[in-house]
């Protein structure tokens, strides 16, 4: 195991933004490339699964895996990389908490297939043909990885050593995390490599906060103008900042959008969505149940809003395929 430490990057169910985040390191990427040996990176380099299989167990120093776990391929590659790597880092919101793909768990798999392949506008599919894992053709047998019943976060399928949060993680956080890991001075196992306070701590709008925050109305960001320097929550717009770990560089706030929660909760909170619900329901300015119900009903998609990035890792998550031996954590 002489030479530079071996590093792997892999993508599961993601949008490509996390790959972009690595490229966003710009010149720093070259420095990283100097110090390490990138042995696997499907988006950028021509290595195959077989190449990974040739490594000894633990030969790869660190694997950065982004994206949620949606298909059998994701299971398989995660198991493989876990086996070959001394450290596994869940990279980005999807690997960390399940991410936006995790919202698919609000529907079951068959329903999703039908919606996507059967009833999609512009698609004619009277027989409701949905993707199969195996098809025989004249040319031979074609196989595809199966789709899991539910979407999972990475640590729901393999052990994860560290987490880099964000959708996508900002370059400075990625750089610091890589530096820390390569330095050998490792933080406690399971650490999330970002500050452990929530966003309000460094919010550029915090001075505009009134003494007490109450919600008389719940407003949608697309329908109101919030001045650049005003606290969103105080203006009646749901902002996940209070329940979301800081360290993102407040890019959304800079674009005059409220925080959507991609960094996940602080380490003192288990369930980001229910914590936010608990917080905002505490500040509804009414003692009247009917009025509270009316106010609540103005939130059109509460699950999508409160759990935009964390549904699979929420307290209420139940996995139908939890007894499937191919998917059980540690079965690799």
């Amino acid at each position, binding site marked *: 195991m002489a030479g530079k430490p071996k590093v792997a990057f892999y993508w599961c169910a993601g949008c490509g933004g996390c790959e972009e985040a690595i490229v966003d390191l710009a010149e720093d990427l070259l420095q990283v490339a100097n110090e390490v040996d990138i042995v696997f990176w499907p988006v950028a380099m021509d290595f195959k699964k077989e190449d990974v299989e040739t490594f000894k167990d633990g030969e790869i120093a660190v694997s950065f895996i982004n994206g949620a776990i949606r298909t059998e391929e994701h299971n398989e590659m995660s198991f493989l990389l876990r086996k070959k790597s001394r450290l596994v880092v869940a990279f980005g919101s999807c690997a960390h908490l399940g991410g936006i793909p995790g919202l698919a768990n609000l529907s079951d798999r068959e329903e999703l297939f039908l919606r996507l392949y059967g009833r999609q506008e512009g698609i004619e599919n009277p027989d409701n043909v949905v993707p199969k894992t195996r098809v025989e053709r004249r040319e031979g047998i074609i196989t595809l990885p199966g789709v899991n019943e539910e979407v999972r976060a990475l640590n729901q399928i393999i052990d994860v050593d560290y987490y880099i949060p964000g959708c996508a993680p900002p370059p400075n956080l990625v750089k610091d995390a890589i530096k820390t890991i390569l330095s050998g001075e490792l933080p406690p196992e399971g650490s999330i490599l970002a500050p452990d306070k929530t966003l309000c701590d460094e919010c550029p709008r915090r001075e505009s906060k009134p003494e007490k925050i109450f919600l008389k109305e719940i407003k949608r960001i697309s329908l109101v103008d919030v001045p650049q320097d005003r606290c969103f929550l105080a203006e009646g717009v749901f902002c996940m900042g209070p329940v979301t770990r800081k360290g993102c560089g407040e890019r959304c706030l800079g674009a005059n959008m409220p925080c959507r929660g991609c960094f996940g*909760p*602080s380490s003192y909170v288990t369930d980001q969505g229910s914590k936010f619900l608990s*917080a905002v329901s505490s500040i509804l300015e009414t003692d009247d149940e009917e009025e509270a119900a009316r106010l609540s009903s103005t939130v059109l998609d509460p699950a999508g809003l409160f759990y935009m990035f964390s549904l699979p890792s929420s307290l209420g998550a139940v996995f139908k395929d939890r007894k499937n031996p191919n998917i059980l954590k540690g079965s690799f």
Partner: protein
Amino acid sequence: MKYSHANRLGIFICHCGVNISSTVDIETVKKALTGYPGVSLITDHTYTCSNPGQDMIRNKIREEELDSVVIAACSPSLHENTFRKTLEEAGINPYKLEIANIREQCSWVHSDRKVATEKAISIIKAAVSKALLNEPLTPISVPVTRKALVVGGGIAGIQASLNIANSGYKVILVEKEPSIGGKMAQLSETFPTLDCSQCILTHRMVEVERHPNINLMVSSEVTRISGFVGNFEVTIRKKKTYVNAEKCNGCGICIEKCPRKTDSEFDRALSKRKVIYRPFPQAVPNIPVIDGEHCLYLLKGRCGVCRDVCGPGAIEFEQEERFVKEKVGAIVIATGYETFPIENIPEYGGGTIPDVIDGLAFERILSASGPTGGEIRRPSDGKVPKEVAFIQCVCSRDPEKYFSYCSKVCCMYTSKHAMLYKHRVKDGQPYVFYIDIRAGGKGYEEFYQRASEEDEVLYIRGKVSRLYREDGKIVVEGTDTLLQENVAVRVDMVVLATAIRPSQDVSRIAQLLKASVDENGFFTEAHPKLRPVESMTAGVFLAGCAQAPRDIPDTVSGASAAALMVCNLFASEELKHEPTIAGVDEDVCSGCGICIGVCPYEARELDREKRVATVNEVLCEGCGACTAACPSGAAVQRNFTDKQISSMIKAILA
């Protein structure tokens, strides 16, 4: 070392006689918990709260070197404090105690022994999981400002103020009217002794004014109350009276010369008063005030006679209202009552028939200093009414339309009214319509008997169904439920015993104090039997009709009790406050500010410099609202942490 001191937890299971042991199998519970993680001792006792029971606990704590204790017994609201003391006496921190409620929440609500036993085991396991994470805590010391605020200067406020002041503590007595005395000053004579109300009241009013420990503030209102037991800060608004009380010598020439008159509130609009006035001749303080709504000078800039005639130059038309801030340690609420307005009772002719009046108006007619000089003359034409109907329970005991409660004083004052009427109009006939006569009280039944027998008051048991005018008379129709026949009496005047309801100030004051009121708007006491003069807010005490309808003797004794509670509070230099309150982990808090408005006790504040929320430990009552609302996990409830709660849930689900 003999023991590892990491976890030395003892479980004590109480049989509560047979209250628990008849449904919960104690031996099975003991077996199930033997060897449970962290448990070093498990034992039981017939009555853990008894002296032998507590001795046993103390001895076991010492012998087994226990460092935390679970007592599986009744609700913590009963004996948590008892057992905390037991732990303290045995030398361990009292907050290392956890009560597992296996009586109210288990044995009393189950009959199936097996189910109850299993549930008791779960409850105790949960308590053990929590107890293992309990931190030792120390009660918080709070200084006490030994000065009381009494709100309301009726007999309740007067009595409470005098009692507190005579015990050597300072009192601020705030009264919204220009004079103290309240409703009692309006009464003619009092039941059952028929002594003159003002004669027994006025010397107390004067005593209040002269008392060196009492700061009397009339024409004033409390507008803001912040702080907490021992340390309230109150803001009092001194309304404009246009008379400088320092300069005024009370000569009254201004009143004499004032050219304008308006209805006298004190006389229930049965007489006129001047626009510069004192509510009644014995008013305390004896300083007139100007009624700004009717004063010609203030309205139109004309007149100004009072200023011209005032020797000491006390009239100040340019006077502004003032706000005074005071620090007090305790508050007595004695805001009193008002009677339900008869204008709102059209079915009894209220507001439309001038000779239908309420009990307080009749008190004024009876009063020697009243509009008729004590002669009974009806309002419409000043004639002496030869027949008068007194109607009881008007709006009281009438849950369909008005109030379900009994106003308590009406039976007796109606007897008094009818009796005094008969004494003065010898050939007159009083009728009393009643539902029941409630004459519980010293000398009350005898008084009622005297009215009905000696004074020939005609009592008709039944509600009035209809009341109307006919040929210059008022016809009162009803059913006599004893004779089971309809009756109609033709009378010259009707007196309605209207319901007593809390002063309209009560809801305002309750909001200021965050004290709770019942469905009728009366202040709620902390416990109806054992803490009858304490409100639900620590340091706030109740007196008089702000709490419930009551008569003068009950009001006075209640006010004295409230005063005693105040003195009790002032007896020590500092108070002990429960330490099981909320805290902030400053390393976690991001200063989002959500908890600030959520706190019902104003105990939370945002430190904008440090960007964290802070807790005023003394204000915090440990309700947990902030902990539930805190989105970052920075708010912690001491000895009720998220970790403890989830470990309890795990213990139950395991």
